[in-house]
């Protein structure tokens, strides 16, 4: 079986082409750096078996990063190369093409985004290009799924090019090819191009960023709440809950019943896997996860994300990070689970850890935020605002310290490529959403179930009540909070928004509310995000960070208590 590799610059459509050829669905997006791992799939075409391999993009065969090395290894290992090119950026893409030709492997050039050349007034003479490169050249639109069959049937014609160029003269040779092969027509800027220019303008960029951030939060909140209230919650209480309680009650073993459905019919208190576990994972976390990826997928495919990264880069520099970290942090405003997953794209471990701590320290997830804001309003706007200000300040200070301690290696300098703004395809968006949903059920759901099981054991062994009794006194002294808050703090691990709601009957004054809210936001990550964290960083680092943040939380809240006592 021959190995065919799809090689090309980042963001030229390799992954989408891969999907079209193999029918394997992958997550694609309109910015460089989407693909960080290799994907492969087997196909049979006209009785020939091939293994198609997709990998990260690279600009040159000279290695610049670990992902480049991955891409290089795949190419070296392959039998046939399909060089995927962005037809609207021919000159830049040809640099890699010529390097690939010199590897003297059978090769085909695939001109992707062919449908965009007409819009942009670009004409390319394919026959001429074939002559000059000495390999078949096939125009394709992966987006519209055209040209793929022609591409597959040309595999048999893949040839080893006899092109010879002097490496030093490579760019003038490329310039020569361009002059012979490409014609540019002047035409007016399209609306998309105008929008693109606006987002890159110094002031326009900031305006777009603010607009995008606010609309995202608004839409996600709206969608998340809507899904919970009108779809998932009724489904749970009217259909699932009675059904499962009935079913499990038929099981004669009390212990198993206890594990599966817990002690009480209220899913928030029962600790049963099939009740609490399902409730948390499905009813509370998933709607936000889904809504966020819905909006995020759109932003990804539109091509907005690199533009946001640029606007925020300066700000993130102060925190020892780069603009690209802004994407996970923005995600963290909604739900920390996709936020942590998004840190996979960051270039080194140090950036990953710093970004994750920033996410953990700076903002509560949307559902918890919603609770804090709506419940906090009775104490006045000032209380609510001060909560967020204190959180932001602690995050910045914490990150600053972490920055100093965790020394910089070779800090990557800021670079980002701006793809053209494109109208997202609804079909692709739906496909991505489906992939991410499946990922959620396969990975996050089991983690939540395990977390609930753990709490169940601790409860059954009376460890939970033991811990609760233990912390009552210190909580009172250090933080000035009533002893009833102790079980809520323990509960916080499972449900971050419910724990805020449980503050209501305690009749706290505004200072206590501020301290309690900050404690609930920072002390521990919720069970879903904790397990995602463990998956992303490994258990020791995850526990270290969590421990550090807990310690910082105690410090911050105690100081706040002291501050309030002294000043007021």
């Amino acid at each position, binding site marked *: 079986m021959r190995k065919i590799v799809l090689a090309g610059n980042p963001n030229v459509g390799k992954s989408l082409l891969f999907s079209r050829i193999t029918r394997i669905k992958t997550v694609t997006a309109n910015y460089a750096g989407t693909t960080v791992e290799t994907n492969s799939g087997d196909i049979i075409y006209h009785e020939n078996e091939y293994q198609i391999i997709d990998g990260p993009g690279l600009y040159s065969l000279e290695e*610049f990063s670990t992902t480049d090395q991955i891409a290089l290894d795949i190419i070296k290992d392959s039998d046939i190369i399909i060089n995927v090119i962005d037809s609207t950026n021919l000159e*830049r893409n040809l640099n890699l093409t010529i390097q690939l030709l010199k590897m003297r492997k059978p090769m085909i050039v695939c001109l992707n985004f062919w449908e965009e050349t007409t819009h942009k007034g670009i004409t390319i003479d394919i026959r001429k290009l074939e002559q000059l490169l000495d390999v078949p050249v096939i125009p394709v639109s992966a987006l519209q799924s055209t040209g793929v069959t022609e591409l597959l049937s040309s595999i048999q014609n893949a040839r080893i090019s006899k092109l010879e160029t002097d490496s030093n003269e490579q760019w003038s040779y490329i310039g020569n090819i361009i002059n012979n092969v490409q014609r540019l027509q002047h035409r007016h800027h399209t609306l998309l191009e105008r929008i693109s220019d606006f987002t890159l303008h110094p002031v326009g960029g900031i305006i777009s960023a603010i607009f995008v951030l606010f609309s995202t939060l608004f839409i996600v909140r709206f969608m998340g709440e809507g899904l919970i209230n009108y779809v998932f919650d009724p489904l749970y209480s009217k259909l699932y809950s009675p059904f499962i309680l009935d079913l499990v009650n038929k099981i004669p073993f009390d212990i198993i019943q206890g594990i599966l459905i817990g002690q009480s019919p209220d899913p928030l208190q029962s600790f049963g896997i099939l009740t609490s576990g399902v409730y948390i994972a499905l009813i509370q976390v998933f709607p936000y996860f889904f809504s966020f990826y819905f909006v995020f997928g759109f932003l990804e495919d539109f091509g907005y994300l690199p533009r946001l990264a640029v606007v925020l880069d300066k700000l993130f520099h102060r925190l020892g990070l780069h603009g690209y970290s802004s994407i996970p942090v923005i995600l963290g405003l909604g739900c920390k689970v996709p936020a942590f997953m998004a840190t996979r794209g960051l270039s080194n471990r140090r950036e990953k850890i710093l970004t994750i701590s920033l996410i953990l320290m700076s903002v509560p997830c949307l559902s918890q935020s919603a609770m804090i804001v709506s419940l906090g309003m009775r104490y006045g706007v000032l209380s609510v605002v001060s909560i967020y200000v204190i959180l932001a300040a602690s995050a910045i200070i914490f990150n600053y310290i972490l920055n100093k301690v965790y020394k910089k290696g070779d800090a990557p*300098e800021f*670079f980002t490529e701006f793809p053209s703004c494109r109208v997202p395809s609804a079909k692709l968006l739906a496909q991505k959403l489906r992939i991410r949903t499946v990922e959620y059920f396969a990975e996050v759901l089991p983690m939540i179930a395990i977390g609930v099981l753990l709490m169940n054991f601790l409860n059954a062994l009376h460890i939970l009540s033991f811990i609760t009794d233990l912390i009552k006194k210190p909580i009172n002294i250090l933080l000035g909070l009533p002893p009833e808050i102790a079980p809520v703090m323990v509960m916080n691990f499972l449900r971050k928004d419910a724990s805020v709601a449980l503050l209501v009957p305690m009749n706290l004054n505004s200072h206590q509310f501020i301290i309690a809210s900050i404690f609930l936001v920072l002390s521990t990550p919720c069970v879903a995000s904790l397990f995602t964290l463990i998956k992303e960083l490994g258990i020791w680092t995850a526990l270290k960070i969590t421990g550090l943040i807990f310690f910082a939380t105690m410090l911050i809240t105690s100081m706040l208590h002291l501050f309030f006592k002294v000043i007021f």
Partner: protein
Amino acid sequence: MIFKYKKTNPDAMKNSGMIKTSSNLNNSDNASNMNITQLNNGETAKVVKLYHNNKLIRKLEAMGIIPGTIITKKSSLLSNGPIIVEKGQFQFAIGYEMAQKIIVVNVD
């Protein structure tokens, strides 16, 4: 930020005028050589030199930003923020420090 060279870079030193050679004793062009950050927004310029001591600069070269290339500075963000550059259809942003390593000369 001070440029730190890993090894002495005689080309750069000649260009900066620290080593006098016959070319720059008579060459007043050095005065008009500037880097991208000194261009006005929207100005077009030709790349003259890239200071080599950096992975990113080499990556930019791989993308066709080499001496002789015509580029446009699209915009810059706030003070010392990233600079947005355009070359034909290709748009990208680089950090301020990096942008200072790309020496250009005005074309108009």
